[in-house]
């Protein structure tokens, strides 16, 4: 572990050393510059933070609880604290970012909002805030994900959003992202692209991280109030694109705290069917940023696999690649089966259905080689609730609903 004394990334070109940047068609450059400009202005405008904080509190119901999970702690022999992002409005951390970005879209005078979604959680969060602000909303979603997440598609429709099916490539999140980018290039003057994770061209990875860092800021304060210690010993979060993880990690990067990101190893790291980007991928450029990528020897992007649609992505946010390379964060993985087991375990032991994404973080706690000392205090980001996954879990368990 390598704790930072100082941390000021990205630099003004949007780089986390060799990661990040803006690898986009020229047409998008003016829009990204406009967004950078408006974000910098908003950051120093107290009216912006007042409005955002008001919405986070009264609309989304923050702060979310930091819950000491007594029964699993007893079983495991160390203290597990769950940061309950599942208690947010719409059921996941995604709303934190959606609220921040919709306020930016408003400042920029954009009337049309587009988004990509995998599991549908970000699509729902975007449709929700678009409804709240009376803006047109179009969500791109792969046909395969539409099949897996019918309930979320209907939720988006109820919220007044149009869900556009994407039938190219693997018909999942990466292809939905390609299609959203094509829409954006075509309608760049009227449209705000509300990216759902710490991915994409600068400034998105930075601003999504900033909007999500409310998770870590609250957790830090709550932990100091609720436990005899000042700081937890360890943080754990699942990583797909990486927004819930960076939200929790970012406020602790300069503290003496071990940090663990958990990727999805699907059917196993050697099965060829996984989404363990940092474990198995290498340096590449996708969706506007230099980062780490699952790709073949010819530089073509490979199809990932995870039981959790939110982790089923062949790339990862550039800041995670940097945090991995600089050895500040240790990245591990959990399989579909481990996540399913953890899903049932938390449900039965604590009465909380976790999202399958979050279940990967929980699965780490039960691995033999986690290296957690007895009596350590471990904060886990429970990034979302599992209601959306009930059908997937039933299917995996062979239960006919």
């Amino acid at each position, binding site marked *: 572990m390598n704790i930072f004394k100082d941390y000021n990334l990205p630099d003004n*070109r949007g780089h986390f050393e060799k990661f990040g*940047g*803006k*690898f*986009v*068609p*020229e*047409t998008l*450059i*003016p829009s990204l510059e406009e967004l950078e400009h408006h974000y910098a202005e908003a950051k120093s405008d107290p009216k912006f933070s007042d409005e955002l904080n008001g919405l986070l509190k009264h609309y989304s119901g923050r702060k979310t609880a930091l819950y000491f999970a007594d029964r699993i702690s007893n079983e495991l022999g160390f203290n597990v604290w769950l940061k309950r992002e599942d208690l947010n409005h719409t059921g996941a951390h995604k709303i934190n970012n959606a609220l921040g970005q919709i306020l930016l879209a408003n400042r920029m005078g954009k009337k049309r909002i587009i988004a990509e979604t995998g599991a549908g959680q970000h699509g729902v969060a975007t449709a929700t805030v678009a409804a709240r602000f009376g803006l047109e909303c179009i969500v791109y979603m792969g046909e395969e994900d539409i099949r897996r997440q019918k309930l979320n598609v209907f939720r988006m429709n109820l919220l007044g959003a149009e869900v556009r099916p994407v039938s*190219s*490539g693997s018909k999942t999140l*990466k*292809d939905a992202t*390609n299609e959203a*980018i*094509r829409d954006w*290039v*075509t*309608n*760049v*003057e009227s449209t705000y692209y509300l990216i759902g994770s710490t991915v994409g061209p600068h400034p998105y990875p930075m601003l999504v991280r900033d909007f999500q860092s409310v998770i870590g800021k609250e957790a830090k304060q709550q932990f100091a109030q609720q436990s005899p210690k000042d700081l937890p010993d360890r943080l754990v979060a699942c990583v797909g694109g990486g927004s819930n993880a960076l939200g929790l990690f970012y406020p602790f990067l300069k503290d003496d705290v071990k940090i663990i990101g958990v990727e999805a190893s699907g059917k196993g790291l050697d099965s060829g069917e996984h989404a363990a980007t940092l474990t198995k991928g290498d*340096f*590449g*450029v*996708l*969706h*506007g940023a230099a980062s780490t*990528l699952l*790709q073949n*020897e*010819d*530089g*073509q*992007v490979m199809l990932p696999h995870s039981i959790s649609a939110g982790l089923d992505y062949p790339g990862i946010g550039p800041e995670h690649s940097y945090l991995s390379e600089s050895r500040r964060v240790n990245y591990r993985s959990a399989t579909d089966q481990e996540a399913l087991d953890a899903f049932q375990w938390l449900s039965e032991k604590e009465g909380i259905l976790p999202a399958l994404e979050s279940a990967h973080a929980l699965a780490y706690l039960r691995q033999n080689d986690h290296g957690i000392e007895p009596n350590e205090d471990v904060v886990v980001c429970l990034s979302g609730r599992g209601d959306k996954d009930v059908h997937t879990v039933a299917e995996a368990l062979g239960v006919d609903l």
Partner: protein
Amino acid sequence: MNRIQKLFADPKEKLIPFFTAGYPKLESTVDLVCAAAEAGADMVEIGIPFSDPQADGPVIQASSQQALDNGITLNKIFDQVIEIRNLTDVPLALMGYYNPILKMGHESFLDRCVSSGVDGLILPDLPLDEAEPFCEMAKSKGVSPILLVAPNTSNERIKKISELAGDLIYAVSILGITGNDLASKDALAEYLIRVHEHSTTPFVVGFGITTRNDVVWFNTHSDGAVVGSAIIKNMDGETHPLKATKSLIQALKGAL
């Protein structure tokens, strides 16, 4: 002087067709490029298929996917370029997304360009902000990086882009992706005059160009016209893609 520099030293009308490498068949590209050159193409763009072509519309997306399914790779493309170079001297530019190039490595990729006879490179997702190291290396090896400008690119940026490119730039005709419809001629003319005034190099225009009239019009407002989706679409379902392509190029050249 490479072939691109020579070509653009001549003010004649220029038609630049685009082919997706490995489409419609893995081995089609050599014949198609040679036929295009015979039919009067002044330069040819060869697209390197990528799994995630973000700047492309449905026609080129589908052709890229087909080519990948046919088994095309960057190595095979360079082999095909060597074959093409044995048969014709037409200037050649590769157009491709950055990741496959990054994966091969800047230096290896550019060395292969030089040894096979590629004259220029168009990388739609490598904008000015990230392009400098690659462009400088390309230029030092005699390969022309052809950077892109768009209708919303500022005058100051057009100048900087053309200075880094050095030999030629590519003006995207529209805010959008390949194969989209063109904007009004008035808006286009205003934009192209702006590019002409601020670019330090010649420039070609592409995206949405489909007819002989377009080719003539764009040649009066720029230094050449690129036709991509229309050529790929023309081969769709065609039993003799070579013949169909040849007659389309002759028509676009006004030779029919």
